[in-house]
């Protein structure tokens, strides 16, 4: 893939991501917002693919687009909000939120300056060729085995907590 093709693909993905994010927060119908968020997730996954992070792209699609978004949609449909009752899309604090967002953007722009942040050693192509999934797996079960196990404890605590909180209706 030529450099020009890669660059134009990136600019396409980035522009559509930003546009769909803006559309997602300005639509009045929450289901429409969710569908724009779906478009955002898919395009961000495309950016990950361009960076050579195939696993991250797959996770982005499966977990965010597949699981979390469907979860949101479930909630929206369970609540069954009529469009007119959904209220104004922005609360009273929107200038504050906009300022926070702009600060983020300024921060990101600042990070763009190559002199400020030291360059990371790029991953050697030889180690990357077996696919990022394999290297993630190797890192997860060797160097990061302990954090991995702690994460499993966190998930266990979350499951137990969810069961305890949900089950209590049945207590006589």
């Amino acid at each position, binding site marked *: 893939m030529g450099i020009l093709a890669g660059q134009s693909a990136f600019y396409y993905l980035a522009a559509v991501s930003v546009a769909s994010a803006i559309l997602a927060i300005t639509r009045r119908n929450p289901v429409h917002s969710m569908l724009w968020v779906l478009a955002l997730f898919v395009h961000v996954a495309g950016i990950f693919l361009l960076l050579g992070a195939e696993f991250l792209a797959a996770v982005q699609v499966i977990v965010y687009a597949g699981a979390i978004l469907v979860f949101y949609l479930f909630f929206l449909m369970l609540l069954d909000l009529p469009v007119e009752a959904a209220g104004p899309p922005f609360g009273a604090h929107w200038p504050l939120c906009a300022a926070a967002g702009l600060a983020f953007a300024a*921060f990101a722009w*600042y*990070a763009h300056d190559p002199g*400020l*942040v*030291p360059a*990371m050693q790029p991953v050697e192509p030889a180690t990357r060729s077996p696919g990022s999934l394999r290297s993630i797996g190797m890192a997860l079960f060797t*160097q*990061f085995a*302990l*954090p991995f196990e*702690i*994460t499993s*404890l*966190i998930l*266990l*605590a*979350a499951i*137990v*907590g969810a*069961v*305890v*909180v949900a*089950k*209590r209706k049945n*207590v006589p």
Partner: protein
Amino acid sequence: MSDLVFLLPELVLAGTALVLILIARHVSRAQAVAVSVVVAAMAAIFSGWAFTPEAPEAPAAMTVVFGGTIAADGYARFFKVLFAATLALAALLSVKHVDTERVPPAEYYALLLLASTGMMLAASAADLLILYLGLELMILCAYVLVGITVNRPIANEAAIKYFLLGSFASALLLYGIALVYGVTGATDFAAIASAVSERNLTRHPFMLAGLALMAGGLAFKIAAVPFHAWAPDVYQGASAPVAAFLAAGSKAAGLAALVRVCLAAFAPEQRIWSEMLAGLAVLSMIVGSLLAISQTNMKRLLAYSSIAHVGYALLGLVTGTPDGASATITYAFIYSFMTLGAFGVVIALGERGEDLLAYRGLAATAPVTAALMFLFLLSLTGIPPTAGFVAKFAVILSAVRGGHVVLAVVAVMCSVVSAFFYLRVAVMMYMMEPQGAAPARVPGAVAAALAVAAFVTIVGGILPDTFTAWTVPPSLGKTPTEITRALTR
């Protein structure tokens, strides 16, 4: 594999939690579970004591295990003992509450155990990743424990508030970690410190932003002003044993993490975090003491008192010296026991223990309970024969030695203010006519927990040097050769 020995206390607690979850269907009474939890806590204390090397003898380079992510030093051991003791006392205090409120006992104690595991991991972390995961394990269990009480709307409200604000604070902490990683390329404390000093990143704006965000996230965990808003509502909404566990354990865990991060990872930026923490300390002391005056609910009063006490505890860390850090962790230790004791008296009095007016004339109807409460109140105020005085004296002394005289003056003035609302309870107990019937007999488990808390409060006050041998500051991690070896691996 041999590194696992250093995680024995965590393994004991997590293993007990797993067994409890497995047999949860067959458990109906809290008593047996509480006993097993106390036994597990004892085993954790013993294994932590037996297998962790003494800090002074061991060279600094030897104290990091698991590829530099877990510190096996005296500091970690000290906090593991503290968390196991907090767990045991909280387990004893919970027995009656679990039975009367129809909380599923096995799950309740399993969550207590997992929360303590998280605290231990956070205190022994030498890597930002482990630190974050440990704190997250702790606070996730805490959200559920706060809301676990059946059919109490106030508990549900408290749990939701805690969850929303806590998630926000976790995000702050995580964003701070991400920024620090972005600048230094490391999550390892020692590697961060050496990267910052070698590449002269002390004033780097990303570094400052990361430091501020991490300080904010950790300040939420210890409920320092201005990140304190959750504490009164959560302590009031949660049942008293859970509030006691949070006030003692999660606060000490937050302090443990904060002290180690500041001293080990951000040592080159000591001037900056020192000023940040001084601000947090002054605000916490003043706001906590002033707002406590108008409280009429005992649990809210203790919540505001916990906010003020965090301010005192931070005084030691502000100086940035190992001695100051020792004073801070001594404070965390002693505060844990005295606040567990005060909450224990609230639990012993049952439902009426939450109302401040119910303490009128308590000395006539329940003299022993009133005397214990008086002891804990004296200690919380910081009056001489109790451990609270020793702790407060140590932090104020280290603040004066570090040249922070203004902080010391504020601390003393806030102590005077706090004497008003602590001793007002004592006046109610001893100088007013009794109201209503005498409280029911104190359950045996609660009495045992109160006895332990009172013992520590008295011994710490009469023999002030008892704890100084244990309260060692965190080891500063690895030698530079160890860092390069860890990086190339």
